[in-house]
């Protein structure tokens, strides 16, 4: 697949503006109606999916060339996929998020990169993590944790902590708690510690496809050698990468997010709560667990037309529009915790507002990233909740930083925090 393959999409984009908003049926107020953080922040049409289609077409047709503005348009996208959901309300044959990825890949291939990204990727190549930390200390988060070490020891389920939980000292306790919860519920769990490496998903969303492929192939090889069948991760980014991107490279592992595992264990009676956690919380759907967390469906085929000019696919092509993302397990877990009152924000599930940390924007556009997180905090505050709860360390880090910068008091929690308190 190449950018050129999306030229028909570019010509079929009808400039309807749906990509800028949440699905119109779901609009409950003026304040929280916007869907795409990029255009909501930058305002010019270029910063929408429709604009990125136009920019790509302009470049492909030789009508314009790379400029600072073009680079800014392409990279100032969190790849949250909100546009993908809203576009597909009316358009069954456009793939804006795929096109945006291809556009990023093309800029990287052409050397049109951002210095912040270059530094991250150079480090990633050497140390296999996104956090500018040494590979050797990746397992430090689990020091003293009584858990099997894969591949030295065999375990039925591999716990993949991910870069953020491995290195973020303020957050890593959540990963330790998740391992303990699963282990105490009877799960035969192991970790790879310093042998774990970055999933490559964030490199993919930044436009570094080659780097993603290298990391993915290494991880798949390591898991296969260790006899891994099931992987559980507390990171939404890793979850998406493993479940949606790795199968394209031939991976066949069962992938679960910790919230899915908790939900399964609760429903099987293996995870029980004995303490009340009296707290009013609101849940933030991470993009990579929600709308981008739909199950992978293999497809290889081509476009054809029926009834003269109706565009369809042979065989039938899976539609990724957020309909089947992971929405119920986190909510079911929260609802099962005694004392927890879940109140919903206006933008939830497939049309949730992004936290602002994705696509490499946290590292390159801190103002934009912080503004996007602050918007979400405002929405969370409007519910009257005392805490915003999520299931992704990248979302949580961005919220913590935004709250700190704004002098706010809202708590930021992972579902694991509440589960731990209730046991």
């Amino acid at each position, binding site marked *: 697949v190449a950018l050129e393959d999306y030229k028909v999409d570019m010509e079929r984009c009808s400039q309807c503006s749906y990509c800028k908003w949440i699905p*119109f049926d779901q609009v409950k107020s003026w304040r929280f109606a916007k869907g795409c953080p990029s255009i909501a922040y930058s305002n010019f049409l270029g910063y929408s999916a429709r604009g990125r289609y136009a920019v790509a077409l302009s470049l492909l047709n030789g009508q314009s060339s790379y400029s600072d503005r073009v680079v800014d348009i392409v990279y100032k996208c969190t790849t949250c996929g909100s546009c993908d959901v809203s576009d597909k*309300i009316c358009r069954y044959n456009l793939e804006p998020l795929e096109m945006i990825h291809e556009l990023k890949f093309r800029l990287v291939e052409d050397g049109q990169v951002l210095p912040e990204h270059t530094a991250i990727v150079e480090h990633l190549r050497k140390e296999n993590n996104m956090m500018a930390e040494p590979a050797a200390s990746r397992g430090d988060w689990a020091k003293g944790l009584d858990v099997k070490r894969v591949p030295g020891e065999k375990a039925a389920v591999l716990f993949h902590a991910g870069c953020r939980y491995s290195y973020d000292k303020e957050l890593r306790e959540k990963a330790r708690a998740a391992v303990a919860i699963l282990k105490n519920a009877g799960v035969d769990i192991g970790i790879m510690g310093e042998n774990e490496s970055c999933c490559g998903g964030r490199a993919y969303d930044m436009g570094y496809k080659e780097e993603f492929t290298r990391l993915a192939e290494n991880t798949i090889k390591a898991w296969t050698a260790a006899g891994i069948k099931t992987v559980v991760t507390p990171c939404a980014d890793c979850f998406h990468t493993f479940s949606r991107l790795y199968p394209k490279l031939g991976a066949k592992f069962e992938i679960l997010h910790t919230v899915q595992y908790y939900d399964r264990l609760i429903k099987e009676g293996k995870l029980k709560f004995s303490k009340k956690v009296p707290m009013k919380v609101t849940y933030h759907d991470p993009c990579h667990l929600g709308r981008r967390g739909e199950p992978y469906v293999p497809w290889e085929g081509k476009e054809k037309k029926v009834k003269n000019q109706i565009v369809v696919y042979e065989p039938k092509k899976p539609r990724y529009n957020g309909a089947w993302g992971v929405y119920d397990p986190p909510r079911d877990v929260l609802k099962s915790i005694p004392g927890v009152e879940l109140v919903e924000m206006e933008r939830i599930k497939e049309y949730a507002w992004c936290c602002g940390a994705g696509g490499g924007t946290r590292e390159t556009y801190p103002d934009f990233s912080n503004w996007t997180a602050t918007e979400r905090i405002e929405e969370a505050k409007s519910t009257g909740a005392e805490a915003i709860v999520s299931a992704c360390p990248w979302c949580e880090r961005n919220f913590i930083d935004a709250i700190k910068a704004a002098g706010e008091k809202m708590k930021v929690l992972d579902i694991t925090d509440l589960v731990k308190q209730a046991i």
Partner: protein
Amino acid sequence: MAIPKEAYRELEGVVGKEFISDDPAMLDCYRYPLSHTAIHIGPYYRVYTPRGAAVLLPGSVEDVQGIVKVCNKYKVKFKPSSTFWSAWGFPLEDDTIQLDMRRMDKILKIDDKNNYAIVEPHVIGATLQAEAMKLGLNTHIHGPGASCSCLASATALAGFGPSSAYMGQHSENILGVEWVMPDGEILRVGSAGSGLDWFCCDGPGPSLKGLVRGMNGSEGAMGVFTKCALKLYPWPGPDHLPVEGRPPAYKAVLPDQLRSYTLGFPSWKAWADSCYLVWETGIGYVAHRQFSMFGRDLKGAMVKILSDPTKTLGDIEELVKDPEIQKMTEDMKRDYQIVLAGMTPRDIEWQDKALDKILEITGGWKVKGMLDPDLYNWSLLYMLRLGHKNLNLVYGGGYDGCFGLGGSPDFGTSGEPARVEQAAAFKADWEKKGNIVAAGGDAMMGGIGGFGGGGHAMWENFTHFDPADKASTEGTLEFFNATTKYGREMGFGPGMEKMNDYARWTDGYSTPKEIRNRLLGGGPQPEAFRYHRKFKEAFNPNDLGDGYYRALDDTDG
């Protein structure tokens, strides 16, 4: 950059560096492909509207005034647009300054005692409706749907839509306008112009509603409208739409006071009679021939696809063969959708009885298949929010309306066979050539009541094609050209497929003067366009708008 550097610097000084761009790729984002949608001139394969000289994002009326004054100083044309739906909002000439009004997006006031809202240009139907519903009110959402600017339709175009019979078209709903005139002066029209509240567009104060917008609006060619007040209407439902389901098949289960039906009729005469009776009875919160836009042969299958999140267009061929769907499609052959809104339980019962009586008189029926709860709740939400209006593009990515029968319901339904059938048969023949979707000829969509109170029905026969396919696009153009000729020969008059020929031509630029004059001068009321010219001379002395304003030289035509 083709405008003087000093002009650019002055414009930058007005809005700030952050809100101006002349980057070529960015300017290409502000061009519209004429191989596309509702252009009403083409389609023309891979032809684009001209590239602007710069695009600006004004944040206030003062910003707009500053921009317009700089444009006057340097004699640079400018073109504002709010939500950029269709080619109207895009320049006709190179080196035009484009104003993207998106930063002016506030709902400034909702007066729930006097039932009106004051809005800025980038307020859209969905957001205004959501806020109004919280107060027991509703807004008319015009034809292009919930994604489009309320102000633009009210000030610069007609603003028809499915709820027009109950809520008027937006040109009727306008209660006041703030207008940055083409020379840069600011005028508040109506009661707001006298420092009073925004309750009447005809005064006390400057009573210039007719001048500002007339029948069809100035189409973005006479200054910039920066605020307007719009009439709101009662909403007997909850404070928000309780939406359920997975995308794209959202549904809403609403109180029994809101009911949605698809009505079918045994003949076009019965269809037309029902329109008159609906208007006479005063029922019909929303009334529109909506799902027919998918085509007579395909609409049953399409509503099934659209209301089921597991279905895609790849299911259409199988679904059209399903006997149950075939039955529903046949029941919907001569149809329209209607939403009843009872202000009290007694009211909704009365309205439903009245509707049953109308159906009894006309021999019509409530289409049973559409009473299936999934389809019922999907249809109800669709018609109230109009959040799926761009489904007219779902097939191949392009559509345009042709024929455009407008007037009394008898206009389209009289004749033997009925004119609508003649038009459908003509299109069905062209569908056989393969360049447009084979939808069954009749894909006529339009309002059961173009104005408040009804009395006027409008249809356009949707034609679906693939704008990325040269043969499809050019075949569609050929069909539209033939349609225009056919419409004239049959006495239907010119169709809406060529409605904007007078302004924009085949290359995307202004229509050549001699053709424009022939088109405007050869119409039924050329004097109106000569009168427009006088307005233009008085209010737009430097001619900084564009050809969408229908002005004709005294000596022309």
